[in-house]
């Protein structure tokens, strides 16, 4: 029995080490963002918000931020608008070729982004269209659609069909049923899908590098071009802001969703 416990302790220790390894670089970025030194490296000499102030005056970054927010939001709206009906079809209906179509819609997750980037750009070039914001948006919708499908389908499985049937048999019209029953039950799934699409779009670099123009830079693409010159402490500050933003949004959303769910169930 003694030996068994020590084995479990080793497993715990190992897990802790993996966590440390995973988070050390991220923590380092946040800490170094406050280092007032000219080079964003150790040792820390003092503590200041200097680089955050400098960042807030950098109009290129601010523009990129605005672009990223708009792009992410639009991507989220469009990807869920076409993804949710598809998820409904897969979960609620039986039809020929269902398995195959489901795999076909989700499989793009496995296609390298570089190839998606080349493919769409080549297609646009053949159509003799210039790169534009629309291309970026279309690309991001295609990129995020499989994830939206996966997330929404996983949530939909948990919603019982009987609720809708009960409403219909009690005399509600199909539209009323959708408005009063299906949609409120579906809302958390839609919300989760949108959030996921937003984050993926906000984060994406590889494919975006192919599609973005000088006017349509996103934050990650901007960071990428900043990296080419040197690693300035401004990047650490920007990294800290991004980490805070992308981590706090899902956490806050999770909290809101839980409150929301609690409000809905008696």
């Amino acid at each position, binding site marked *: 029995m003694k030996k068994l416990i020590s084995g*479990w302790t080793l*497993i715990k220790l190992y*897990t802790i080490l993996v*966590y440390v390894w*995973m*988070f050390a*670089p991220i923590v*380092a*970025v946040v800490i*170094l963002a406050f280092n007032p030194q000219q080079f*964003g*490296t*150790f040792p820390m000499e003092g503590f200041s918000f200097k680089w955050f102030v400098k960042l807030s005056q950098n109009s290129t970054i601010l523009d990129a931020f605005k672009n990223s927010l708009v792009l992410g939001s639009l991507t989220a709206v469009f990807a869920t608008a*076409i993804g949710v*009906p*598809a998820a*409904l*079809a*897969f979960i609620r*209906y039986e*039809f020929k070729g269902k398995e195959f*179509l489901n*795999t*076909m*819609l989700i499989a793009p997750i*496995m*296609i*390298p982004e*570089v*190839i*998606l980037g*080349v*493919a*769409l*750009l*080549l*297609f646009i*070039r*053949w159509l003799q269209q210039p790169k534009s914001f629309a291309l970026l948006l279309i690309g991001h*919708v*295609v990129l995020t*659609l499989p994830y939206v499908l996966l*997330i929404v389908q*996983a949530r939909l499985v948990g919603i019982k069909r009987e609720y809708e*049937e009960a409403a219909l048999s009690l005399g509600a019209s199909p539209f009323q049923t959708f408005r009063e029953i299906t949609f409120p039950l579906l809302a958390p799934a839609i919300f989760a899908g949108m959030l996921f699409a937003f984050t993926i779009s*906000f*984060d994406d670099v*590889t494919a975006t*590098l*192919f599609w973005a123009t000088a006017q349509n830079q996103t934050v*990650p693409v901007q*960071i990428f071009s900043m990296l080419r010159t040197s*690693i300035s402490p401004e990047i*650490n500050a920007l*990294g800290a802001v*991004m*980490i805070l933003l*992308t*981590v706090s949004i*899902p956490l806050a959303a999770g909290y809101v969703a839980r409150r929301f769910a609690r409000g809905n169930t008696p």
Partner: protein
Amino acid sequence: MKEKPWKPWLLLSPSLTAVFLLLIVPVCFVVVYSFWLRAPSGMDIPAFQFGNYAKFFADSFYPVILLNTIRVALETVFICLIMGYIPAYFFYRTESRLKPFLMILVMLPFWISFIIRTLSWINILGDSGLINHLLLKYGMITTPLPMLYNEGAVIMGLIQYLLPFMILNIYVSLDGIDKSLTEAAQSLGCTEWQAFREVTLPLSLPGVSAGCLLVFVLTCGTYLPPMILGGPNNEMIANLIFKRVIGTLDWPFGSAISVILLLLLVIIVYTYNRYMGINQIFKSLSKG
């Protein structure tokens, strides 16, 4: 209840149209384009010839990059497996109240910007990064160890990105195992280790293989880690495609390299699907 047979198709049509027009057609275009001839100026010339492929295999330069990509992918898979199995097992067995919190922490990196996570390794491995800073400070070395811009650094960045996928895949598989099976094995006289080796480990293999496939495929298409953390010799196939297409505007050759990469992945995924079934991966991904 009677269903209208066209209804699911109506619901599906926007997604199907989008994926068909914006993904399948463009990818077919890449295949077609890979046979074209490059024009010195203007539009490329439609043709059907294998010159672009011949160029790839003409000397060892390009094939070496392809082999490098495969080697790095295998190394990443192996290290992810070693680093990921034990934490996944920990989640499966632990009864700690902290478990949901720890699970969220594993998934947290999914939400953190990929480029930030990649470049964060510069702060750790660089000449004036954390490790060299500490080693210098305590007099263990006199000059900084060169830890950045090599294959090791690239793999570090890749693991940072892919480890959560591996842990989740293994965990989902482990979580489906009835714990009473191990208890039964132990009550029949197995030691803890024997019960793990004979019962738990074999039953977790679907998750292990799904994780390995996902990590391998995602590594093969990776662009950023070799770009940011690697040196000139650590280029991978995706970097090559980017350089040819965006750098030298050689669309036909860039397309041919894309097709080669795609073929490699299709063969691997197809083989996997034959023996294991691809749905295991989607099952785990939807938990993420």
